[in-house]
């Protein structure tokens, strides 16, 4: 599904190397987790995959089902199936959440040559999905993420993901700022989307989210590289001993 090879990324503005050769393959149907200390480059990887400005790829490649992601505009990547649940979801005053969702869904359908969803069909789907994430009608009407609590913002990300049904879901610290109940809700939302055709890249600092979203593979990222890869037990190792031991071992 997602294939990242030898990816080197630096900032456009300053001569600072952030990713220093990331190799990673996420197969369809699998959940990969990336863990790592703050500042190791996890968010940068997620941004580069989804096409944010400000980063320059100096070497390496990233493809989705064989298509070169790095050549595409952000909206083309989205239409191709990439979705990023932001670490810090953006507030957009003046744009209603519902309008935003419908515009996004229909833009992607259009890009794929599908008919737009009718207003009533859309409403039915969105209401059902919102309900399972405990997102009420009021939150759907309000401007995107404006005045939402941390937990509401993260649930709103998962709602967007559920509506857009992407092939490759990247979740950047979706657990941060969530209490246990909210984390369960979010995990349920993610688990409901797990299927054979879909890949997940779950970025997290802590192990606790992975109690609820069972990963197939766990990677440890440090200083712009994947330094260790293993099974779910690797997450437990981090939980018990912190990153220091692993990093010492690799170095």
């Amino acid at each position, binding site marked *: 599904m997602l294939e990242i090879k030898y990816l080197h990324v630096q900032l456009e503005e300053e001569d600072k190397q952030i990713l220093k050769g990331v190799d990673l393959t996420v197969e369809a149907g699998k959940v990969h987790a990336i863990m790592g200390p703050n500042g190791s480059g996890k968010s940068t990887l997620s941004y580069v995959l*989804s*096409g*944010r*400005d400000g980063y320059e790829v100096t070497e390496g490649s990233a493809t989705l089902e064989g298509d070169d992601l790095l050549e595409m*505009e*952000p*909206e083309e*990547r*989205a*239409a191709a199936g990439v*979705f*990023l649940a*932001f670490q810090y*979801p*953006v*507030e*957009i*005053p*003046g*744009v209603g959440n519902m309008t*935003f969702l419908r*515009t*996004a*869904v229909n*833009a*992607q359908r259009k*890009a794929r040559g599908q008919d737009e969803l009718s207003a009533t069909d859309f409403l039915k789907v969105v209401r059902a999905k919102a309900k399972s994430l405990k997102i009420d009608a009021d939150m759907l009407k309000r*401007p995107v993420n404006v005045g939402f609590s941390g937990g509401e913002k993260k649930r709103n990300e998962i709602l*967007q993901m559920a509506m*857009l049904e992407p092939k490759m879901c990247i979740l950047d610290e979706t657990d941060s700022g969530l209490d246990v109940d909210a984390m369960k809700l979010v995990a349920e939302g993610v688990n409901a989307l797990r299927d054979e055709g879909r890949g997940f890249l779950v970025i997290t600092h802590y192990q606790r989210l992975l109690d609820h979203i069972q990963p197939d593979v766990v990677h440890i990222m440090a200083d712009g590289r994947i330094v260790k890869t293993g099974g779910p037990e690797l997450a437990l190792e981090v939980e018990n001993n912190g990153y220091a031991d692993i990093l010492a071992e690799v170095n």
Partner: protein
Amino acid sequence: MALPEVKQTATEARLSAMSLPDAGCTRAAREDALARVREMGLPGRRDEYWKYTRPDTLVSPDVTPAEVFASDEPVMFDGFDRLKIVFVDGVFDADASDDLSMEGVTIDRIEDICCKDIHWAKELYGVLEARGQQPVQRPLAALNTAFARDGVAIHVTGKPSRPISLIYRHGSETSDAMLHHIIRVESGAEVTILENGPAASRFNKCMEIDVADGGVLHHVRAQGRDHQRRAATHMFTRLGAASVYKSFTLTVNGVLTRNEQVVELTGDDAVAHVAGACVGDGDFHHDDTVFITHDAVNCESRQVFKKVLRNGATGVFQGKILVKAGAQKTDGYQISQSLLLDDDSQFLAKPELEIYADDVACSHGSTSGAIDDTALFYLRSRGVPVKEATNMLTLAFLAEAVDEIEDQSLASDIVTRLEGWLARRS
């Protein structure tokens, strides 16, 4: 004090091309206004109040020709049941207008009033304009009072069932129009006034609005799409106790627009909201100049102005809140913001507060900026193409001003125009 020679020459040049109408009961007001014009002189480039906007073409004896624009959009306010009063190049068009009678209101043409010796409008004609010359001079409004031949006097005594819709058509490339309207809203009465259209190649409009205690006036205006038209408009509004005035203006294109709003809250608990959304590109120059005076207790005023500028367009905002001594519990809010879609455009803002009471809450803010990159990326990452995402964010930027319109269907008509403007540039 004698006028500077340049100013006097310019003023006399303009005046020499005009003559006072045969004016019946407005004669004295017109003569007074003419005297005011001579005393103040017409606006010049050196005037502080015209620092950001060049008045030359608004003042010159000759009109700069302006193409008449044929729009393919549905007519503004088309779906609304309204009483239509049509002016073509500033001249009343009886055939195109509806019958002027409606329950709860009497409407007379200024021209008809002029042949009468007694008329209620005499109490108001030129009066609010004259009051509005302090502390800042507005000579173009005095010029209008003196010379405007047409317009309507609207006396609202009840709650007319339909909005009164003033339609300003542009017919000739060299038209130079002046309209003067008088509106008196009686105690407890309520009316909606709509205005739309470019009016003329050069348009000078003056509206005097007197809202008695408990009266309500809603005003929604759209200034047409003609690129080359020039307009200087003044609205002088006096508000009685617990009265409400809510005004919104949409400006799309137009090479030069100067919209002045002068509002005086004279009775306790009065409410005044003036808002505007403008979008323009290229040589578009748009100036909102607002002066709100609080002269009573517990009044609320809001100014919300949003400007979207691209390809070198210029936006100007001069807005003042004056809170007089004794105007306690004043709640004054003012925001002016521009969204610059490129580096060539500019926004010049002069927000002012002058407060002589101690128990007041006044805030003002002015910002100028580009599209928010983070928000743009967020929308694009969800699959919304960059143009569409930019347009969404632009409309979102304008929304705070449009939200000032209470009537939802009028507001959505305005939004449709803004969407059209954006779509034509995508």
